[in-house]
């Protein structure tokens, strides 16, 4: 019986993003037309942009850093890919590659600022936000860039390859990336090294891990993921504006929220990309459910705020309670129990 209890608790803690999703889905059942192929497909494909940004943010956070430039990086990715294709006339594949390469360059710059100039990542990427934003505006002259009627790839991205699954191509690519990053983090040496970087940078460095290089790669991966996400999103939408990263609840905020709800430790060394993805799905589904049940945007932001606040509150309280028992010696408790007869 004891064992069962322990099992439950650890499950709830570890899989809180899944539980969040479950609760949302239960509420979803109350709203009309939530569980239709069409709706689910639409929901899943709209997780794409957030997921790519979330991947970037999570990977950085596992390595003990914060990348605040993710939102603008995604916007830049969308603008570059459409600009390259529509304005410069390059084929799609090359345009996507260029967008991802731009992401890599920004990521390397972020990494260099953090590792070589030794600026706190929070500040460095905050500054990078301005730089990307400025660069972006200059590149597109503040205008919206669109595919100009060339919807070939757009249609391809929104087509459904497997009949009975509500997955369109965009979502499948997203899913592949999520799985890819999960495998990279969980099962490769480099992935484990990222955890070590976040766990204790010094240990990692002393153990002969090239921590500077690894950190730069982490930032590079983060920005590349965002640029790719932005690029795909741009193609999927057929258009991109430089204000993409600022509108609504900014994608950065959603990525940040999802990463925390997904259980990534803000100090680094702990977290999973898959959990972030699940939280993003839950958040997007929640938006949809709230819209159909309550019909107002106001409630979305209130609810997501509540969920995040609860998560933070829960974690904090847990730490607060646990703090009292750190270092307690089991052998002494036996004596205590013997003595008091409890």
């Amino acid at each position: 019986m004891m064992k069962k209890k322990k099992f439950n608790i650890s499950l709830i803690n570890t899989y809180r993003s899944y539980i969040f999703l479950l609760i949302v889905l239960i509420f979803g059942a109350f709203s009309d037309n939530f569980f239709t192929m069409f709706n689910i497909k639409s929901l899943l494909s709209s997780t794409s942009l957030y997921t790519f940004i979330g991947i970037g943010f999570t990977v950085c956070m596992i390595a003990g850093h914060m990348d605040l430039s993710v939102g603008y990086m995604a916007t830049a990715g969308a603008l570059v890919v459409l600009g390259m294709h529509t304005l410069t006339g390059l084929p799609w594949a090359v345009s996507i590659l260029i967008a991802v390469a731009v992401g890599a360059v920004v990521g390397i710059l972020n990494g260099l600022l953090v590792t070589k100039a030794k600026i706190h990542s929070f500040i460095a990427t905050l500054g990078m936000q301005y730089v990307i934003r400025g660069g972006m505006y200059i590149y597109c002259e503040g205008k919206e860039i669109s595919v100009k009627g060339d919807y070939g790839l757009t249609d391809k991205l929104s087509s459904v390859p497997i009949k009975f699954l509500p997955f369109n191509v965009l979502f499948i690519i997203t899913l592949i990336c999520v799985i890819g990053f999960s495998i990279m983090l969980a099962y490769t040496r480099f992935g484990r090294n990222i955890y070590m970087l976040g766990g204790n940078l010094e240990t990692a460095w002393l153990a002969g891990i090239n921590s500077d290089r690894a950190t730069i790669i982490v930032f590079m991966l983060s920005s590349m993921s965002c640029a790719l996400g932005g690029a795909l999103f741009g193609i999927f939408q057929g258009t991109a504006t430089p204000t993409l990263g600022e509108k609504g609840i900014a994608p950065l905020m959603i990525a940040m929220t999802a990463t925390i709800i997904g259980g990534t430790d803000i100090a680094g060394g702990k977290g999973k990309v898959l959990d972030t993805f699940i939280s993003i799905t839950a958040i997007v589904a929640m938006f949809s459910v709230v819209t159909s049940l309550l019909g107002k945007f106001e409630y979305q932001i209130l609810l997501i705020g509540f969920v995040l606040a609860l998560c933070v509150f829960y974690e904090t309280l847990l730490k607060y309670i646990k703090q009292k028992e750190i270092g307690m010696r089991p052998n002494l408790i036996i004596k205590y129990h013997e003595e008091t007869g409890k």
Partner: protein
Amino acid sequence: MTKVNENTTAAKSDSRKTEINKALVFFDKAGVWILVVCLMAIGFIINPSDYFSVGNIRSILQAISLTGMCCAGLAYIVYSSNMNDMSLPMTIAISGMVSIQLVPFGIVVCIFGGLLTGTLVGIINGFMIGKLRANPIIWTLAFNMVLSGIARVAWGGSQIYPDVVAGGNEAALATAETFNQLARTYFFGGSVSLMMVVMVVMFIISYFIMTHTKFGNQLKIVGTNYETARLSGLNVVRIITLSYIICSFCASVCGLFYASMRKIGSYDNGMGYDFSCLTAVLLGGMTLLGGKGSMVGVFGGVLAVGMLNNVMTLIGISTFNQYLVTGIVFLLIVWLNTKSARKLGRA
């Protein structure tokens, strides 16, 4: 070499630095004021006749006064090594909205109500972060969302106008007018505005608090090393809570003027102030590690941001390029700050 040995804390204690780079010492002392002087020089070269005119100086000060008020408070958060108060925008918005909502009850109630609301936000933040040790960034982010939700739901997402809230009531309309005039009160023949005075006074008080009070000196230790402060008998919970309360109070003062300036209370008042204020504070030489920097520096940082915008407009740099320039200048100054702090053993 610097790269390698500084990676280990052990190495730091071994390096007893006696040889000190003079330029870095100078930068450490003068900080962002160097940038301010440079910008003045550039401004003067571009527009020698008007740059130091009353009008231009007033316009710069006027433009930075809202950000300045916030920064005077946010500096406490950064100084206490709690990184940033992400709930600034909603503190600004909500205090403005509440005070406009209270316009029918007279100007005193209206101002007092707005400030009280902001302070309440500070108390909650302070409790969570000071007492329960929640992660400051994430908690304030979450709380900002909650506040934003509450504000939107409570007012149905619409803007509120002081004179509409006042209705047909004569006295209330007069109060509304007084409220709107808050941001439009001038002294000395229009050369000094109430907002500037409030901002400067807030900075002076902040400077005084930081250097000449018990709280300020204790905050320095709390910011540098929380555990040390706790084990030195400082009431860390009270100090951190107080710093959040001050921050939120300053934000709500800013919120009042913001609403008065717009003549509108809305949930989007103060949008973007979380990062723009942090930018100014960091420019002013504070670091996220806490316990470093001063109010003089922060004022310099705020001034630098305002002057940068002013000079860029005078040069004729478009809004787009302004972002780029701001970003690069910001990174450069922060890099120099970090570097001088490291070389002088302050980080």
